[in-house]
């Protein structure tokens, strides 16, 4: 083999090795970091895994937000207008976090059935509904209106 050819082969070998390593790393990282999405019903039915983190979407149930009085701990429930799932979070909620608003929480399901959120996302748009959340519901507006109506109905009766 002449030296020229050998060098060319070496270069190609180097490239293959490098790209192969990159592909391996990519697949590994992907496997670790893909977060599945579940709606509240799926979590309530026990379809979401206990342990790995996933994304949970839904409307913040009206009247469910409880702030601790001495820390930034907060608890609330998310609903997809079928079932509700309790969520715990510690930290500052985004500007648009509000009761009746569609949000996405990223977190892990505990053995007690509560989702420990590490991150809470709400977009900067009054009419925005995270797409996954919107798709899980038939009629977003009706559902949102219903949240408000429910708050009123319960208030009036109690």
């Amino acid at each position, binding site marked *: 083999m002449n030296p020229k050819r050998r060098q060319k082969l070496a270069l190609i070998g180097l490239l293959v090795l490098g790209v192969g390593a990159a592909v391996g790393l990519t697949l590994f990282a992907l496997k670790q970091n893909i977060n599945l999405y579940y709606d509240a019903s799926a979590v309530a039915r026990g379809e979401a895994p206990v342990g790995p983190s996933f994304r949970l979407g839904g409307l913040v149930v009206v009247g469910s937000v409880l702030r601790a009085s001495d820390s930034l701990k907060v608890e609330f429930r998310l*609903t997809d*207008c*079928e*079932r*509700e799932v309790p969520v715990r979070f510690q930290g500052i909620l985004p500007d648009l976090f509000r009761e009746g608003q569609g949000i996405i929480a990223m977190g892990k399901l505990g053995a007690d059935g509560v989702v420990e959120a590490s991150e809470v996302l709400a977009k900067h748009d009054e009419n925005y509904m995270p797409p996954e959340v919107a*798709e899980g*519901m*038939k*009629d977003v507006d*009706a*559902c949102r*209106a*219903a*949240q408000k*109506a*429910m708050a009123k*109905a*319960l208030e009036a*009766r109690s």
Partner: protein
Amino acid sequence: MNRQLFIPLLVFVALCVLLYQGLSMDPRLLPSELVDEPVPAFSLPALDGGATLGAENLKGKPRLLNVWATWCPSCYTEHPYLLTLAKEQGVSIVGLNYKDEPAKARDYLARLGNPYETVISDEPGRLGIDLGVYGAPETFVIDAKGVVRFRFVGVIDERSWNKELKPVLDRLQAEQD
């Protein structure tokens, strides 16, 4: 001609075909509805703890089968209007309490009022699945022979009642007479 040079083009075309196929699928297509089919056979307890109910309990006269649950916020919205329909217009409504806890459901009716003739308690959600229910509230119009004639998804209010449900029910009433 150098064949290798076609590789990028082929990769791109394959990607486009995949993307096009993916995008033209509509994931929200509903399972075939049961319109003009008899209500599937079932055997479920009544919510008030009485008799076991079956499809034959839905025969005899045209009525509404209303799917509801306490976890369903829109049901709270719909509820007052159902009361009006039952009390003031004499509409016969059977409730299907779907995937709910019977105790909570009984409490709901006791507090908010009961518009239903009977309530079928479908805790495991079997009948709901057989009916193709994919949320609540949903309301089926059923004729005297126990055949589903119309399916309505969403909250019943004055407008949707007069526009969509009432005409169907009136027609069924006329068929029977």
